[in-house]
């Protein structure tokens, strides 16, 4: 019954879209990418009774799943993953319907044919209220086709111990250059996608390399980034992938400067720990819901994406995890919501313009270059393995 009600809703939405003549022709950057041809869901049907989700910790919580289950009869089964790479591996088993993928996992899944393009007409809450910077990005919108429903985003910021640094470092050079005063007390993110952070630094300091997008590196540019990372390896105290380890490292004094997220700084709960966005800009994680191409629960999956796109649920997820919500209508809903949005710069597009959203590097150059072949994520992975001697 509920299912039919929803399809009536989406029918309305479809006609509204047709009337307004609005169809997303946003071709992220004019880049054409080879992707397997997978049909999208045409119309809503009966709910299947369950939806299996791979998600970041804090994205799925009884606080909002209870209502969803009661409304739709779709039982939510959640599997928490710790890294993007784990998410990709889990999604490829075909046992999960939907994933909260960051951009570095999303494009990999799209190109690999593991996820399907979305029929946004069936997701009425996929609305104009989504923050501008989260729309039509190359990591989840390929060849003009949307594959992801935005959830939220966050920047990889430079965290510093103010007691030691006496003020915010202006540049990322404190974590890259061998003459850093914090040698041995530096932390770096422990994943191949961190190569992009080196590329962002090189974009600013070595324009002669011609890097236009940190996720579109040709062989020579990748080599330059790897050389920088090898240089950093000699001054790094710790690499982190585990959030708890990073927090204890900063709080315990072992780390003075390094990559962090706003939410980790909050968890550390020490007034002397602060974050800043240095002059070079930075990378960031932009998360979206993607639906498996092998899903058996397509209607429940669509219902889940629609439900979590409402301002209140999207906001609840963002507050629970500690990130900027995609649906900025949430910010206006209460004083508490506004405070959260301000803290995580949810509505500050000027801030997020300086952030390069994590995107899987693929051999097609996502900066639009056609004369060279770019390095793929597999090459990044192999190169990453050679950094930590």
């Amino acid at each position, binding site marked *: 019954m509920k299912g039919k009600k929803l399809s009536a809703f989406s029918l309305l939405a479809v006609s509204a879209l047709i009337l307004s003549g609005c169809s997303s022709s946003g071709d992220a950057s004019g880049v054409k990418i080879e992707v397997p041809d997978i049909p999208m869901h045409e119309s809503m049907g009966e709910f299947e009774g369950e939806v299996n989700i791979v998600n970041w910790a804090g994205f799925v919580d009884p606080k909002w799943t209870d209502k969803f289950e009661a409304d739709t009869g779709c039982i939510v089964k959640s599997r928490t993953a710790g*890294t993007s790479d784990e998410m990709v591996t889990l999604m490829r088993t075909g046992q999960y319907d939907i994933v909260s993928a960051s951009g570095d996992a999303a494009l990999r899944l799209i190109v*690999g044919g593991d996820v399907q393009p979305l029929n946004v007409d069936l997701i009425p809450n996929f609305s104009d209220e989504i923050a501008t910077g989260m729309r039509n990005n190359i990591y989840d919108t390929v060849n003009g086709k949307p594959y992801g429903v935005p959830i939220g985003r966050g920047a990889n910021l430079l965290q510093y111990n103010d007691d030691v640094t006496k003020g915010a470092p202006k540049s990322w050079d404190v974590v890259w250059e061998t003459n850093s005063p914090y040698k041995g007390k530096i932390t770096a993110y422990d994943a191949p996608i961190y190569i992009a952070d080196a590329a962002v630094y090189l974009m600013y300091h070595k324009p002669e390399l011609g890097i236009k997008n940190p996720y579109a590196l040709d062989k020579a540019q990748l080599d330059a980034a790897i050389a920088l990372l090898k240089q950093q390896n000699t001054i790094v105290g*710790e690499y982190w992938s*585990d959030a708890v380890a990073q927090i*204890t490292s900063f709080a*315990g004094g*072992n780390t003075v400067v390094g990559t962090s997220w706003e939410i980790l700084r909050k968890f550390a709960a020490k007034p002397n720990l602060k974050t800043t966005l240095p002059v070079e800009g930075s990378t960031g994680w932009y998360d979206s819901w993607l639906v498996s191409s092998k899903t058996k629960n397509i209607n429940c999956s669509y219902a889940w994406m629609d439900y979590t796109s409402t301002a209140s649920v999207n906001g609840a997820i963002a507050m629970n995890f500690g990130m900027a919500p995609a649906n900025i209508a949430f910010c206006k809903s209460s004083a508490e919501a506004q405070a959260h949005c301000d803290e995580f710069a949810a509505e500050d597009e000027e801030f997020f313009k300086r952030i390069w959203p994590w995107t899987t590097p693929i051999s097609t150059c996502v900066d639009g270059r056609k004369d060279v072949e770019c390095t793929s994520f*597999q090459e990044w992975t192999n190169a990453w393995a050679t950094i930590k001697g």
Partner: protein
Amino acid sequence: MSTQTTNAGSRPISAYLYKRAKLRLFGLIALPMFWIVGVYILSLFLLLITAFWFVDPFTSKVIPGFTLDNFISIFTVPAYLSTSIRTLLIALAVTAVSVLFAVPLGIYMAKIARPWVRNALAVAITLPLWAGYLVKIIAMRLVFTEEGFFNWALAPIGISGPTFSIPLVILTLTYLWFPYMALPVYTAIRQIPPNLFDASSDMGAKGFTTIYRVVLPLIVPAIIAGSVFTFSLSLGDYLVAKFTGGSTQMIGSIIASNINLNPPVAAAFSMVPIAFVLIYLMVARRTGSLERM
């Protein structure tokens, strides 16, 4: 006659099996064999097979095939080779430190300590085994952070502890695996007849000579047994390096970071500790101590 019938009637399975020795044997070993072959060896075999497979450079998906590149990379990528050697040295160091602690402790517990002290020490050695493995590693991490307990306690006398580095990895691994060395060594020393000590001293040997000439040769099998644990468990570990090693990489770190990104390389690398342990066992066999275990 009637008694026999009653017995057979009341215990039909025993009666049935009594006449069929092969079935009896099957019943005995079916379950453990299923475990060893079906679960243990099969999964190891599947892992070994993956080591010869490719990864699609475009989608990062694993494709069956045959290549030796993954094994060759262990030797040709400098970071991989140095990590293998580093891990081997760490495992040997952990074993050496464990022996260094276990022998004097064992002698004291078995020959000198009063019964209640001996019991208290036995509990103290085994107590850490009751705590979770990860809990112990995090505990070491917290104790040895810059502003942690160790530095705080020793600051007044001007000593600062090791930071997150290789020495701390060795220390933490020793802490984790020490019971596996201490218990067999202690048991072996207890089993040395007291009159051997008397004989040694009758012939004029001092304490250290007795330990060196009498005790050590007798407990070598126990040390080898213990070292198999300390050595092989250290070889495979990666969480200790992750939480107390700073930027230290071990073989396990490479496997862990490749298990999702490049499973064939992870599979190839998982053969390295196996090779090390096999070589170690062969050397131990050469010394003849395995037969006496």
